[in-house]
């Protein structure tokens, strides 16, 4: 049942991306091109998405102790704004600004069958793996430094 609702949520997510045409990298890039022929559509995508999610979150989710299926809510509780977050956002912005593709649209484009989307996803996974290694490496260094001290 949980797997089915996850499937339906994913399906809806993909449908939203396709109807909003966020699956077209050039639609996204023309939204980011504010000094050129700016296309504001994506601002409306975000505004609509935020309105629905946010009102539902504060009215429905917050009133509950646990989700309809499952034992608890998995909501990130970290509040600290650290270098990882800032540097990560910079790199993500670079990649998104270059390609016009973020992870959701990358997946939604799989059925284009275009080899380029598969290569994009492969390099995206590689990037995630490298970031994971980097985090582990720096954590080890911190741990070693603490032991030395």
């Amino acid at each position, binding site marked *: 049942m949980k797997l089915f609702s996850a499937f339906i949520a994913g399906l*809806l997510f993909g449908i939203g991306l396709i109807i909003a045409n966020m699956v077209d990298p050039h639609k996204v890039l023309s939204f980011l091109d504010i000094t050129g022929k700016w296309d504001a559509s994506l601002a409306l995508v975000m505004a609509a998405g935020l309105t629905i999610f*946010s009102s539902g979150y504060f009215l429905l989710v917050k009133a509950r102790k646990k*989700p309809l299926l499952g034992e608890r809510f998995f909501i990130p509780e970290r509040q600290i704004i650290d270098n990882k977050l800032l540097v990560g956002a910079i790199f993500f912005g670079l990649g998104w*600004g*270059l390609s016009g*593709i973020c992870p959701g649209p990358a997946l939604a484009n799989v059925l284009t069958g275009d080899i380029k989307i598969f290569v994009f996803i492969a390099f995206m996974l590689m990037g995630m793996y490298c970031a994971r290694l980097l985090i582990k490496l720096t954590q080890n260094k911190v741990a070693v430094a603490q032991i030395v001290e």
Partner: protein
Amino acid sequence: MANFTPFEALLGGSILGLSALLFLLINGRIAGISSIVSGSFKSLANKPQWRWSFIVGIILAPLVTQPIGYYLPKHIDLSWPVVIIGGFLVGFGSYLGSGCTSGHGICGIGRLSPRSIIATIIFMLVAIITVFIVKHLG
């Protein structure tokens, strides 16, 4: 304004918001695509099956939208270096920064999370500057 499509944008955005809301309300999970993708490769002890269901849902979405007249682009009209470097940076940055457009941009800002608000402002600004440099100075 070129190619402004307000109706599709509002409809698509509402469906995205509804998807993220239902997923949190029913499964208790955040619809952050980068985390779902990276988490789906972790060990089976981590029970990643729901992540795979979500991913299969996104991939099959065109089969639903085709009959109502919304299609994927015919092909991905980007150069190879952009595909390769862009893909790597999107993966690297979203993992390091714990989120992407969906996790930070919709679910995070929607919860008024300070981390997500800061992250979204930064990646939006950097993306806008990147497009400016590539399109107008390149």
